[in-house]
């Protein structure tokens, strides 16, 4: 009842390799609208940036706050035009004059307006948590807790998700957003590495690397001359 609560994990994969252990998947669209993106990272990044810029231009020409439906419509019209080839599966949430809204947007361009949504490879794991714990009109603390648990469901049970949990809260009362980057970090490898003796050869001593050739060039010019 207090607003819209968005959550995301922070793992970016390329096949079975983790390309980024701490990427940011919650994108800014407007001061009162944020968007979580699953699918191809470049597609979600660029699509949300494009629509964010379109929304800002619209704000300048209308003189009013952006509406969530405007963001949804701009996104779905673009994604449908590309027939699903722009692989961006989005969870869009925001607060405007008409209230708090949450949408899911599929790469082909279809949308759903729902009280709770999940997208991505871990969406089934997260949705199972939502289906168990969701109630209408939850307060902020409960909502944040549920979103965190849902993301954790994806982090620990889905191989495509992992590392940390980011949360963004957009409150109905103020219409403003609070970004909680790395809200929870249950996978800190530093703690794990402290549990065993690390091999001494990890730190090569001075002289370990062979110097094959040394070449020295002396510049006698003043720095400004270069």
């Amino acid at each position, binding site marked *: 009842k207090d607003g819209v609560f968005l959550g995301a994990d922070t*793992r970016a*994969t390329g096949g*079975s*390799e*983790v390309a980024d*252990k701490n990427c940011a998947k919650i994108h800014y669209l407007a001061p009162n609208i944020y968007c979580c993106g*699953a*699918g191809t990272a470049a597609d979600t990044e660029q699509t949300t940036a494009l629509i964010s810029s379109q929304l800002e231009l619209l704000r300048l020409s209308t003189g009013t706050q952006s509406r969530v439906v405007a963001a949804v419509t701009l996104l779905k019209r673009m994604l449908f035009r590309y027939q*699903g080839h722009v*692989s961006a*599966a989005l969870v869009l949430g925001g607060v405007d004059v008409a209230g708090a809204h949450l949408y899911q947007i*599929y*790469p*082909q361009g279809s949308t759903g307006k729902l009280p709770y949504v999940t*997208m*991505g*490879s871990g*969406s089934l794991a997260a949705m199972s948590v939502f289906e168990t714990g969701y109630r209408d009109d939850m307060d902020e603390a409960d909502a944040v807790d549920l979103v965190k648990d849902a993301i954790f469901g994806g*982090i*620990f*049970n*889905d*191989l*495509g*998700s*992992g*590392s940390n949990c980011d949360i963004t809260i957009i409150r109905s009362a103020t219409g403003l957003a609070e970004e909680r980057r790395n809200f929870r970090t*249950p*996978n800190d*490898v530093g703690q*794990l*590495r402290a*549990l*065993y*003796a*690390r*091999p*001494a*050869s*990890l730190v*090569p*001593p001075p*002289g*370990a*690397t*062979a110097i094959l050739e040394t070449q020295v060039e002396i510049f006698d010019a003043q720095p400004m001359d270069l």
Partner: protein
Amino acid sequence: SRARRGRSRKEMSTIVRRCDGGAERVWQASGGPTEHKFDPYDFNGGTTLAISGEDFVMVAADTRMSSGYSILSRKVSKLHKVGERTMLAAAGCQTDVVALVNTLQTRHRMYVHQTGKGMTTTALAQMLSNTLYYKRFFPYYAFNVLAGLDADGKGAVYSYDAIGSFQRVPFSASGSGQSYVIPLLDNILCHKNRQDPQPPLTPQLAVEFAKEAFVSAGERDIHTGDAVEIAVVTKDGITTETFQLKQD
């Protein structure tokens, strides 16, 4: 025909749901006989590592079993005892690994009945190669590492491909995380590309190397994680320890 504008009448499409949540339209030629194929292999993931020492050998493997993007189990052992003092660590398709291990253990049992003695590590190494090549045209999808003590009591590690080509090596890593483990161990274990003196390899140091390798591989390989089972084989027996890894 309007729906297939721009495409041949003989083409048909299906929607395929991808494991990343997206879906795509896949076009196939149709109108004639359609062939559906059964893929007999599943990739269950995992990484294995073995390091040989002067009078011991250390074998380690993670305990995660996965399929696609799902975890099937966090506690499956990939270490198998096949002789008196020989361990086989194998990742790949779990059912093929289990079938292979059962075959080896049965044949070893028969050898003991027939000769009254256990098979040496070198003999087991050759037998594994022969068993794998026997299925040259429908291979065991198993990435094997055999480790044990040789006739002189020195540590021996043998590394295999899926169809039985093998070689004795000082250390070997295989499985989904091998690309992360091998370069690390080349540098910190074998001191490749560095000139500082190499300390003597003790079982404790080998275990440290294994933990370091698996923590690092678990960071970057989605199929590696949960826990790593580390076994040290010496003339006095086999000791095992389990070290917890990240579960994400």
